Every structure is written in structure tokens, then in C-alpha cells.
């Protein structure tokens, strides 16, 4: 990086099913909240980046979601970059905004992510994962992949159904302490196990729900940080985006892509996984959070089940994970997720997370693993923030 980049403000909508709310309205609310949080006027924004993944097929707006939300905000004339990158569309918009500043081209960048999955304009076939058309014709859906992954992890490492369920129990407990998640009621291990089966061994409560929402982050350069006040700013220590490796014949219980992305992020930031106090990971499924502990280096391979059952991912543990409730309780509006993660980690590093505050959080991580392409995960982002 040629220059330090800082997160000066964050904002997000409540996540949930909002059939009456449009993507422009959701995006506007999140962006205004980020501007307000940063204390930055909309006319100071030099570049706008907008992430969304499914607005074309669902809302009939393939291009120009960023311009649409910019129009809502009265932000015009500035460069707008529209980003579509699977589940990582939001974290990718963050990375583009970060590069826009690090390059020296801009000083103030607004990254927005938005998605509306609960309803669609017109009719059409059920959504399949982009890049999995052959598999889709055989019945593929993401739960089928993670159901197999769970069975393999149980077989190889003795991970239990109860340990997986504990991920949902933990994330629901965090969700009750945050105003944003869709599902905020506590659940028990027994309730997770007894929920409707989806793809063995996963039940409905092992899977993230359908959700709508938006989130945004206002990034500034070191050059102008003094103008706005350094007080609540959080530094971007690293932001790394990698794409898939596509080796099919592999150990399903580890994502080599995530290992590479996180290793690069730690090297860039000059820290190690042991330094991470708080993390938002891509917990689209309970077993996914367990595998991410391992791939991101929070624990050794195969120890992910114990990591949650021994409390290491809870408040006061080695790395508190999904204190914002995670995908499991917020839901996963694809374009918004990466920036909702930045929202939570920023709150943690500022010490503003209330009852769900990880004590003395200094380094936070966000992680998204998105999309499938020919049997492998297609994209991975890891962002490290510090104060």
C-alpha cells in the first residue's frame, strides 16, 4: 500500500425480509448512516463503489446499482464502480474503495453493498449458484456441499453435531445483543438438532436464512484523516482478494483458497492469526464457521469443533467470532454481507459494541468465501482492521 487507508464511518440497515423495501431505499439508508457516522458530507465523496450480486435476475437491474443509490444520495459526477463478485460483492467493493485511496487517486471513498433476496420482480426459475449449472441440474445447492463437508469433517476429526449446533447457539446469543440481525431469539443445541432437516446432517438452523439488507463504509486516506478527526477511525491493516484454485480432487474439509488469502493478509499486516481478537467469518453454515476457524489459523486443522465447544470463539476467548450475529442470524444478502462484517468489527475496535464487546479488541478480521466454480469456492476476501 502506498498510503494508509482508514475506515472513518460505517452504517447498515437492519437485515431481514423486507418485501416492501427497494434496493435503492436500503442502499440509501446504509450509506447515509455511514456518512453520518463518519461526519462526512456527501459532496466530499470522491468515488463510490457498490457491490451487489443478484440484482439483475431478482430486481431487473443488472447494471448501475451504484449510480441508482448515488442518485438517491445526491452524489453525482464522481466515478462509480459497480462490483459483482458472488457472496464477496460487498467485501470486494470495500477492496476497490481501499485501492482507490491507496493508489493516491482519491481521498474519500464510499463503499456500499446491497441485496434483496426475499422477493423478485417477475417470475423465474429458482436461483442456482452461478458457475454450478451442471451440478444444479443434478440437484446441487450450497447446503448439499456443506452437508458433505460436515460429514467428512465428522469422519476425519470427530467433530460432533452438538459442536456445530453450538455455533448457532453462540451466534444467536450475540444476535440478541445487536439491533441488526433478522433472528435474535436464543436457541438451544436441542432445538438446532431437532429443526427441519435440509441436507444431512444440516438442519434449517445450521443454515443462514434468506435476507435483505444493505451496509456501507466510508474510507479516507491518511492525507485527509486529520481534517475529519482521527478519534473513531480504524486502520485498514490489510485487504486481500483471491480467486479460486479449482483443484477438484482435494480434501473437502479445508478451503485452500481461504488459507492462501488469509496468509497473504497476515503477511501484509505483519501480524499472525493469534493477534486477531475479533472476527466475522463466512458462517453461511455452522460447519463453515468451524472450518473457517481452522483455515484462518485460529486453531489447528481438525480442532474447529473444540474451538467453539471450549469457548475460544466466545466473548473473552482467543478470537470472538460472529459477535454481530454472523450470517446465521443476519442472513446473507450477498452484496451487503462483507460490509456488515466491517460494520461489526469497526464497532468492536472502537469499543462501541455494548454487551457483545470483546474486551480490549485491537485487531479484527472479516472473511467472505463466495460462490462456486466447478466444485471449488470462487472467491475469498480477508480484511484486517486495527486500532
Amino acid at each position, binding site marked *: 500500500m502506498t498510503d494508509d487507508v482508514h475506515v472513518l464511518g460505517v452504517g447498515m440497515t437492519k437485515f431481514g425480509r423486507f418485501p416492501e423495501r427497494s434496493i435503492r431505499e436500503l442502499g440509501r439508508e446504509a450509506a447515509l448512516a455511514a456518512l453520518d457516522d463518519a461526519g462526512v458530507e456527501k459532496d466530499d465523496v470522491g468515488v463510490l463503489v457498490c457491490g451487489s450480486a443478484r440484482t439483475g435476475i431478482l430486481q431487473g437491474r443488472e447494471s448501475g446499482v451504484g449510480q441508482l443509490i448515488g442518485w438517491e444520495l445526491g452524489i453525482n459526477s464522481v466515478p462509480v464502480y459497480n462490483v459483482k463478485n458472488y457472496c464477496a460483492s460487498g467485501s470486494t467493493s470495500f477492496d476497490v474503495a481501499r485501492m482507490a485511496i491507496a493508489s493516491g487517486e482519491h481521498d474519500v471513498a464510499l463503499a456500499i453493498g446491497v441485496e434483496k433476496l426475499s422477493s423478485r420482480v417477475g417470475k423465474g*426459475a429458482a436461483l442456482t449458484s452461478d458457475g454450478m*449449472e451442471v451440478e444444479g441440474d*443434478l*440437484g446441487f*445447492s450450497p447446503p448439499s456441499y456443506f452437508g458433505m463437508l460436515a460429514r467428512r469433517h465428522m469422519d476425519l476429526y470427530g467433530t460432533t453435531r452438538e459442536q456445530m449446533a453450538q455455533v448457532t447457539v453462540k451466534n444467536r446469543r450475540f444476535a440478541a445483543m445487536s439491533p441488526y440481525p433478522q433472528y435474535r431469539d436464543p436457541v438451544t443445541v436441542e432445538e438446532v438438532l431437532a429443526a427441519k432437516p435440509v441436507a444431512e446432517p444440516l438442519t434449517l438452523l445450521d443454515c443462514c436464512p434468506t435476507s435483505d439488507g444493505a451496509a456501507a463504509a466510508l474510507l479516507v486516506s491518511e492525507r485527509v484523516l486529520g481534517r475529519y478527526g482521527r478519534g473513531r477511525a480504524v486502520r485498514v491493516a490489510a485487504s486481500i482478494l483471491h480467486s479460486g484454485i479449482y483443484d477438484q480432487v482435494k480434501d473437502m474439509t479445508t478451503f485452500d483458497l481461504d488459507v492462501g488469502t488469509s496468509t497473504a493478509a497476515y503477511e501484509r499486516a505483519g501480524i499472525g492469526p493469534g493477534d486477531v481478537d475479533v472476527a466475522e467469518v463466512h458462517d453461511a453454515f455452522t460447519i463453515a464457521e468451524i472450518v473457517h476457524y481452522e483455515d484462518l489459523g485460529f486453531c489447528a486443522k481438525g480442532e474447529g469443533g473444540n474451538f467453539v465447544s471450549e469457548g475460544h470463539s466466545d466473548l473473552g476467548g482467543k478470537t470472538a467470532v460472529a459477535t454481530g450475529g454472523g450470517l446465521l442470524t443476519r442472513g446473507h444478502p450477498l452484496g451487503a454481507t462483507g460490509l456488515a462484517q466491517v460494520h461489526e468489527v469497526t464497532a468492536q475496535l472502537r469499543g462501541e459494541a455494548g454487551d457483545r464487546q470483546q474486551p480490549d479488541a485491537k485487531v479484527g478480521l472479516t472473511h467472505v468465501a463466495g460462490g462456486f466454480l466447478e466444485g471449488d469456492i470462487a472467491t475469498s476476501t480477508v480484511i484486517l482492521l486495527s486500532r
Partner: protein
Amino acid sequence: MTQGKDAATPSETRFPGQHALEQQILRAGEGGLELVGSRCPQCEAAYYPPRRLCAKDLTECESIALSTRGTLYEATQIRIAPVGFEAPFWLGYVDLPENVRVFVQIRWNGDGEPRHGAAVDLLLETVRTGPPDVVGPIFTGPV
């Protein structure tokens, strides 16, 4: 490099079905339908679904019929079916001797559940009810 049609699935050997899945992964061989992959003549790397150019050296790949016996890597029972499918049914990854892993439906006729390491055999039958019905790979066991 020649720039003709997709060499991995030459049109003259394609399964006459209209569906994209059938077009991409099936062909009519001498002994009946075959599941198709591709192989790089330069480095021997095999691929499924078939691809035209080798990912390692961009050599034009050859179309190959994949083995009909494989080893189950893992499977899961689907309990909430997508449109066109009827739950419960099994999906799985099967490893083939060509060093490719194929995502398929699993039909398990034995006691218990299909497990990692089980030998399974290929059937090419209806995998999705239409209209139109779609033919694709199902691996069945125990062998």
C-alpha cells in the same frame, strides 16, 4: 491453435438431448451413452466437466469417456428438494481413476448409508423430472 468448435465435446458424438447438461457431459458411444471428460494430450491432466483447453498449458484437450466405476468421496441426503427433484435423495462426489471428481446423484441399495470409500457404478438415467426430463450421472452401490 485452431479455433473450431468445442473440441472437448465434438458435435458428432454428442447425446442428441436438447438440455444443456446432456449436451455438455454426455455422448453417444458405441456401447451406449457415455459420461464425458477431457484430457490434455500434452500433460495428461483430466477434467470434468470437459473443457476445451488444458488449464495448465492451454493445449487443446481430447474428449474421453470417463470410467464407470468410482469411489465415493462423500455424500449427503437432501431432505428439502429443489424444484424438479423429489426429496429425499442422495447427492455425492465420486472420484474416478482418471483423477477427476464428479458431482452426481447417488442411489444406494444397500443397508445403512453410502460412506466415504465405497465403490460405486455409473448409471446414466433421468436425474431431473421435467418437462423436459433430464438424463445425467447417477452412481449406485454397493457394488
